[in-house]
């Protein structure tokens, strides 16, 4: 039955998904809010934010840079353009100026010797803090001092929120998520409609709002408003494994424009309901959709006391990897040679290296590593929201050429990614460069290669789901 239904193409191809989203992203600029506060308050807000967020770690990093120039060799944006201003060390200059005048033990001296920071300095830093830093952390791998520039840039993003200098696209999405609780309009209703569509057209059941479930799964705006195949694939896999799972309509969104823009109050507004929902249903596992930055937003956020939570958070690739290692995935072999791109947020800044590779192994893939892989992987150029920024188009396009070169060197036919942002950025690069490689999502690849036996659908629980969340 399902085989027949599956042949009907209800959802668009990812090529179309990208084109559709690109149109929507283009409209975000007009929706961006204008600054509302006075220049003095914006400047004071930015400076105060940095002062508040500066602990010993940040201070040591800011103190340690010796301008040795090593980090420039590691940054894809510098490598792609050769322009001095994109050197990672430059991205902490303004933070250091504020630090020296306001926090440093020698601040009395620096106040005498340096000129005050102006709002204009923050305006000029916008390109460095958003467009040209994906917070990928590659520069930390070469820095002889081990400075974590990405963390410092993240604090700068928080300052930019206070200075009302968030780039228009991120600003529009931040305000949408803050005011309406949606991203690109993906509301609980959108989720329900998508679940209905998947049930009707593909015969795949998605247990929504169960009272109790072992595994709580998140989705993401990209899957709900554009790429239905993502959620469909997730559902197929969950049902294939026969796990007791659910999606909660009051905590389903992986995307967190609080974290991306630097607005940590919005970050909390998004993260808290997810944690609350997982606790309410007694979940043992929370699976984060293929949405790279959701991993640091939830699993690794230093402000989220996850050690004390009764459930474990993991990224989709980690979940799949563990299932593969446990032999719970019955898979047809994957044809052709493939390589794997570690998303910055789940790889170098997340540590989920083994699991996606275990999945590819379970798929029997002819797998080849990229020349620079795992901790040393080159960012695709689209991370930390950069994929959305029109002003960053040239930086993205130029730096993606590094990725093309790397993938071509492997001789693989396809590159597998496990992050919607990376995938969209790869798709953009593929289309713009008429690149002859396939870009596959790990979760969709697994779903497409499942050998389906009897599919256990959590029907028994569907009845008591109604009205569970009102």
């Amino acid at each position, binding site marked *: 039955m399902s085989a027949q239904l599956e042949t009907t193409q209800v959802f668009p191809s990812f090529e179309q998904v990208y084109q559709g989203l690109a149109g929507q992203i283009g409209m975000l600029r007009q929706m961006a809010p204008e600054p509302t506060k006075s220049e003095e308050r914006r400047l004071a807000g930015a400076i105060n934010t940095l002062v508040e967020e500066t602990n010993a770690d940040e201070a040591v990093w800011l103190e*340690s840079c010796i*301008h040795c120039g090593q980090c420039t060799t590691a940054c894809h944006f510098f490598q792609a353009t050769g322009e001095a201003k994109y050197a990672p060390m430059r991205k902490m200059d303004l933070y250091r100026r504020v630090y020296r005048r306001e926090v*440093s033990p020698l601040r009395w*001296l620096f106040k005498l010797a340096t000129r005050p920071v102006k709002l204009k300095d923050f305006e000029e830093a916008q390109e460095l803090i958003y467009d040209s830093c994906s917070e990928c952390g590659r520069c930390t791998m070469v820095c002889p001092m*081990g400075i974590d520039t990405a963390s410092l840039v993240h604090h700068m993003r928080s300052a930019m929120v206070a200075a009302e200098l968030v780039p228009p696209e991120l600003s529009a999405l931040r305000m949408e998520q803050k005011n309406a609780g949606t991203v690109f309009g993906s509301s609980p209703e959108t989720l329900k409609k998508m679940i209905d569509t998947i049930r009707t057209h593909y015969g795949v059941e998605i247990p929504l709002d169960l009272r109790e479930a072992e595994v709580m799964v998140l989705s993401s705006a990209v899957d709900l408003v554009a790429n239905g195949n993502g959620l469909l694939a997730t559902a197929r896999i969950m049902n294939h494994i026969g796990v007791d799972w659910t999606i909660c309509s009051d905590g389903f969104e992986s995307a967190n424009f609080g974290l991306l823009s630097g607005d940590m109050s919005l970050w909390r507004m998004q993260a808290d309901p997810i944690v609350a929902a997982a606790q309410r249903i007694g979940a043992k596992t929370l699976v984060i959709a293929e949405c790279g930055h959701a991993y640091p937003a939830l699993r690794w*956020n230093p402000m989220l006391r996850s050690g004390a939570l009764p459930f474990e958070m993991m990224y989709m690739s980690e979940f799949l990897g563990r299932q593969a290692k446990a032999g719970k995935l019955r898979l047809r072999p994957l044809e052709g040679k493939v390589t794997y791109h570690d998303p910055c947020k789940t790889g170098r800044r997340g540590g989920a290296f083994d699991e996606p590779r275990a999945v590819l192994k379970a798929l029997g893939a002819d797998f080849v590593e990229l020349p620079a892989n795992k901790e040393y992987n080159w960012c695709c150029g689209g991370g930390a929201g950069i994929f959305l920024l029109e002003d960053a188009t040239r930086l993205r396009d130029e730096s993606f050429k590094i990725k093309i070169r790397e993938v071509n060197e492997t001789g693989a036919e396809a590159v597998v990614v496990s992050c919607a942002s990376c995938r969209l950025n790869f798709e953009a690069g593929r289309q713009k460069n008429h690149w002859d490689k396939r870009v596959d999502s790990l979760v969709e690849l697994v779903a497409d290669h499942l050998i389906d036996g009897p599919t256990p659908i959590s029907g028994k629980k569907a009845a008591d789901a109604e009205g569970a969340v009102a």
Partner: protein
Amino acid sequence: MTLLEFARGPAIHASLIILVAGSMIRLVGVLALTRGADLSRPRDVFGNFKGYRTVFSRAWPSDEFTIVTRYQTAMAYVFHIATLLVVVAIVPHIEFITSLTGLSWPGLPNWIGVALGTIALVSLIALIMRRLSKPEVYNSTVGDYVTWIIVALPLITGLMAFAHVGLRYETMLALHILSSALLFAYFPFSKLMHAFWFLFSRAQSGVAYAHKGVRI
């Protein structure tokens, strides 16, 4: 008071007080700041401790970056080792340290001291040449050049005094001591403090990444 007496007396003593007090203020002032706790669950319970190995492992660039960083790394090592040996292992310096602390140890023969001083100066020049030839990589500031000059001066004047070139020996020696005093006094306010920071910076990054199961 002659210039040499001034250099050997108040100048060098004042500079050493500034060096010690300034370094302490800057180190303690920073390290006494609160540390933001990472509340997230570590990937591996004892994994964080593995992060401390970054203090040692970062002493040499990983294979991924060997080619692009080898010139700088090699020159920096040559410079640091040669300079350190000159500072603590030539006879006149040991005598000065003995006069301050009472401690003493055998010194290197003069010719080795001169060779090391020359090597230190040549490697320092090699480093500034690269900095000058690749401005886009280094993003140099005025502070970078000032620091270079302040580090180079004691080496140049020391070698000149030893070789009896330039001004009268006593004057050259006074200039050498004064330039060293300048270096000591400048140290706590400059990037030279990396001599201490590298330990903390590497350790905290190593631990932050090890928390997530990543070895940097």
